[in-house]
């Protein structure tokens, strides 16, 4: 993992990480309610995220990559990306769910240990977006695996993604 605070010292214009904005309040409330209703085992204070692309145009990926970089510095919130679903707490799914990638999504979901969360990121993952009704597309992420949180936008901005992901952390902390 990159030591961004150290890099910042020699990087003009990036002296400070982006101040954290508000946590998505409605997402936090619905997540907390779901947690209580299911009396689900809570996750820890840091979350490992595995990104799963189910047919995205690379627009959402672009914004996730920005989130992972020097400006937003995801790691300071206890959020980090991992390459293996076995190491993940959260699956961050982008793109409309194509028929061809359904099995891959299900395999990633099955490989992720419980308790786990699924976040559908971007309008396509929420409900298929503009690709709804195509012969090659099932719809949103929910057509393959149960979804816990949706973050809309085409693509959602890094701030919006961050606000949603922090709601996950807060709900677990409450």
């Amino acid at each position, binding site marked *: 993992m990159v030591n961004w605070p150290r890099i910042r010292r020699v990087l003009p214009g990036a002296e400070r990480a982006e101040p954290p904005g508000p946590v998505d309040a409605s997402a936090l409330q619905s997540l907390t309610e779901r947690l209580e209703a299911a009396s689900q085992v809570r996750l820890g204070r840091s979350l490992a995220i595995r990104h799963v692309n189910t047919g995205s*145009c690379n627009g959402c990926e672009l914004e996730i990559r920005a989130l992972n970089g020097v400006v937003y510095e995801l790691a300071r919130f206890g959020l980090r990306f991992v390459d293996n679903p076995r190491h993940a707490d959260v699956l961050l799914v982008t793109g409309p769910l194509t028929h061809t990638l359904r099995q891959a999504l299900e395999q990633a979901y099955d490989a992720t240990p419980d308790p786990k969360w699924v976040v559908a990121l971007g309008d396509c993952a929420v409900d298929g977006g503009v690709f709804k009704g195509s012969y090659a597309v099932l719809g949103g992420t929910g057509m393959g695996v149960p979804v816990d949180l949706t973050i809309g936008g085409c693509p959602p901005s890094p701030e919006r993604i961050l606000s949603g992901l922090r709601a996950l952390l807060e709900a677990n902390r409450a």
Partner: protein
Amino acid sequence: MTSAAVSLIQSAIMEPCQPWARYVLRWEQWGTLVEMLATEPLTLLAAWADTVQVHALFDDAETGTILPVSVAVEAGTYPALSLRRAEAVWYEHMIHDLWGHRAVGGAEIKPWLDHGNWPITHPMAPRPGPPPRVPEPPEFRVLEGEGMMQYPIGPVAPGIAEASHLRLTLRGDRIVAAEARLGYTHRGTLALMRGKPARTAARFAARLAGDATVAHSMAFALAIEAALGVEIPPRAIALRSLMGALERIATQLDILTSQGALLGAAAIQGRCGLRQEHLRRAMAIAFGHRLMMDCVVPGGVAGDIARGGVAAVRQALDAVAREVPDLRRLYQGPAVSARLCGLGRIRSGPHPVQGDTDARTRARLDAIANDVDIAIRGLDRLPTEGLSVSMPTGSGEGLAQCRSARGEVWHWVRVDHGQVAAIFPRDPGWALWPLAEAALRGAPVADTALICCSLGLPVSGLDL
């Protein structure tokens, strides 16, 4: 001097396609053309189909002539281009998967976009077929030999990436062969665009590739405008060109950011990431969207540059311009350049990808500097009048090209009474992936991601 192949093409029946006429070859003329391709220096830019014809787009490098050619499909078949041009193979697979036309006399037809999971087969055909009983899993060439092993990567690839599958054959830690398998992110874009008014279809063109959304939107809009003979006003032309340059800079910075991360060079990753982020914020201030998605539309642009947009973009561009010399210096550092030099060499290919990883990085930095100049000049001389014109509901056929960070985007479109009757967008990825297979051969397996990143391999644009 006109070559024999070009003379042959130009002797055929001409169809009105703007601005380059399309030539419809008879079956035997097409066969002769394919034979000539063995020695003729024509570059195959794309191949696609509609319900009755198969089309190919050639670039005559000697005279700079663009030649769209077609042949009628007879009994569901057409003479294969892959007999003489290996780069036609993936197009022929794609044509078979979408329209059901079978190339004869060339490479064996394999499933490409259709992995056997769709509820129908040949979705673009007049009468699509029933789904196969059993899905066909992808087949890979298996190389037998002492100490050889197969190493699959994807389709849920490591990192924050697009969905593709790379099958490597390794001996020890060296790559002996690499084979790509795409089509996972096929969303049926062509079928969704067909029959829609140009403005509605443009939303799908904008979502072919998120990091080339302006390039695809622009090529699509230009093709529609060529087909209908529409001239767009001067301010719209200038704003489009500005957006194109901004997108190319941002995407090049994105590629260099990822490359910096793979190199473990945090200074490169940080600087490129920071400049990219500031540029995208300026783009959002100026055009209302960080990627400028749906900002270029047939007939012009969706809206004017916002108040304060010029200053914001100017500031971000100046910062990028100041960063470029520093990035050049960082890339010349011994630890970085030693890893890049000689890695993933491509002997002949389109300009930005030719050479080794080091050469490609320098080419990207040059491209950034060049596009910053274009964008700043554009900002200084924005014409005052005209953002868009209304589109007539005419008919016609058009072909257009636009530069993206990864290479040339081409769109061919046939418009029928203002609606898209047939369309094919050619993403630069069609040319890049076969080069990646070649560049990976002989490289250490640990450098796979770095080589692929330096080539800037897109997926979504060619998965359609």
